[in-house]
């Protein structure tokens, strides 16, 4: 095997060696040298001024209630950033100019050492290792070795088990929502219930179950905080109205709508983003996250995109005061697929 550090024989041209150093103008011309020096010092000086300007800007420009602006931009952020930016940049540029123009720029050569250790070092290391292992006697005592390995391996168990309370077991949480028979459907944000004649053909309503806006006797919300967020992530729905003759429901779903008003889960079956990009003329709804497209006139079947399942539909009807209500909860789990979700 050829020593990799020798030049390969048969190289057509010999190494001509380092080229001679050629001087820069600043090396030979004192005026150029002085000019470069002044340039570098000026940059450093300007940087110092910018650092001071930062301090001035910090106190001069207001944020908060009465934000100062400059040409439509927030003044404090702009001037703090510009002054800090130039304060830093100019130090850098000054240092670089100094290196390029004034510091001695003769190339120097350093020899590499072989990356691998020398043979004597290797031998010595190996000998030390062998001696140490022999002293421990581990090779002669497989019982100790195996039991040690077993003990250390078993430590993996406490490490894993100690994390068990990171979260509760899923149980059937993913299969349940707050929707119940008779629960009113209300407009999101406002919390107002909806009557069918308030909904026009082509309308889209982003809706929630009424319980999200319900308060108890003390006026406190029934569901709030992160519990509300978790339930919203499954119970948010959209209501759309179209001409009844445009709808092709599955046989079992003929009475799931009210006069052409249909209610679907707002939570995409791909990874759970809320969908409400509804096209009133095509009845298609598009998810902004990954562009899954569903046809709401045809039981929300998937037309395009990475979703695999149609949006679950909520059967709706009208209560005795005329407001839209759910007939029952969803008949399938809402939202993204998961391993245990079988049909």
């Amino acid at each position, binding site marked *: 095997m050829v020593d990799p550090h020798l030049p390969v024989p048969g190289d057509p041209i010999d190494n001509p060696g380092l080229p001679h150093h050629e*001087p820069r*103008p600043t090396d030979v*011309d004192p005026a150029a040298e002085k000019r470069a020096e002044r340039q570098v010092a000026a940059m450093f000086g300007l940087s110092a001024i910018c650092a001071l300007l930062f301090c001035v800007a910090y106190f001069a420009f207001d944020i908060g209630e009465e934000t100062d602006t400059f040409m439509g*931009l927030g003044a404090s952020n702009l001037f703090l950033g510009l002054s800090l930016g130039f304060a830093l940049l100019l130090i850098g540029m000054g240092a670089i100019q100094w290196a390029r123009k004034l510091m001695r*720029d003769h190339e120097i050569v350093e020899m590499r050492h072989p990356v691998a250790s020398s043979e004597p070092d290797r031998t010595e290391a190996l000998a030390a290792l062998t001696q140490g292992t022999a002293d421990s006697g581990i090779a002669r005592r497989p019982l100790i070795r195996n039991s040690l390995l077993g003990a250390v391996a078993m430590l993996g168990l406490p490490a894993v088990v100690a994390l068990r309370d990171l979260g509760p077991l899923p149980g059937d949480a993913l299969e349940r929502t707050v929707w119940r028979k008779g629960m009113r459907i209300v407009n999101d944000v406002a919390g107002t219930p909806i009557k069918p004649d308030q909904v026009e053909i082509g309308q889209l309503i982003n809706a929630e179950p009424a319980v999200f806006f319900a308060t108890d006797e003390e006026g406190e919300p029934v569901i709030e905080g992160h519990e509300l967020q978790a339930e919203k992530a499954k119970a948010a729905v959209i209501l759309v109205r179209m001409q009844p003759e445009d709808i092709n429901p599955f046989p079992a779903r003929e009475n799931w709508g009210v006069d052409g008003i249909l209610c679907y889960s707002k939570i995409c079956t791909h990874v759970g983003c809320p969908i409400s990009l509804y096209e009133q003329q095509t009845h298609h709804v598009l998810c902004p996250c990954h562009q899954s497209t569903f046809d709401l006139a045809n039981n929300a079947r998937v037309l395009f995109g990475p979703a695999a399942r149609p949006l679950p539909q909520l059967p709706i009807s009208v209560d005795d005061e005329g407001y839209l209500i759910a007939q029952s909860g969803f008949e399938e789990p809402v939202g993204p697929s998961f391993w245990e979700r079988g049909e």
Partner: protein
Amino acid sequence: MYAVLAPATAQDELAADEALVSQGRELFLVGCASCHGKNAEGIITQDNTQYGPSLVGVGAAAVDFQVGTGRMPLAQPGVQAERKPPVYNEEETRALAAFVASLGPGPAIPEAEKYSMEGVDNEALVRGGQFFLTNCTACHNFAGAGGALPGGKYAPPLTGVDPKYMYEAMLTGPQQMPVFSDAVITPEDKRDIIAYIASLEEGPSYGGFALGSWGPVSEGMFAWLVGIGSLVGFAVWIGAHSTRSKKGGRA
């Protein structure tokens, strides 16, 4: 098209003005009837596609929106009507609206108080923002910069749009945009939404230039082009050979 019985006053006012209605009819026959039919009944082709839909019952608001933003008359067929400089002036637009309003009851042009910012306190502004984020941003984006719809259609940007047109768009649901009826998104809600959008436009850009308000896509582009571009440029400067002098001997 189904129509909500809009407040009768503004609608009937327009429709009742006979002179305006007939002026509108004249304009309609010249500029709109070729797609929408002589009586705005719509034209269906042999293949059952539409040239222009029926305008009976769309209301004055729809006409004011479509014509006022220049979307109608359509310059060329396509998946969507684009906003462009309006062809008809204000009076002509009013006349067209009156004509269409006379064909059947529909949403009326909103009065100025409906979209005026007066009386919008901070609470209403916040509420408007919440309505906006729930109902509008999925199509129009968090800053109203617009967004993509299937098949080459799009939700247009809301910047530089007159509050009246925003109101009318929510009310009438132009093209693929859904309808947001006054019964569900009340006139106060609509006003609050419009106030919020205006506050975004009028407020300062706190962090610097907004880069189109497209979110991480444009931010990534700037990170690469401006950030890495300038830093690699500096690196090239740092590593470049300095000028060599012609005078002076070997040092």
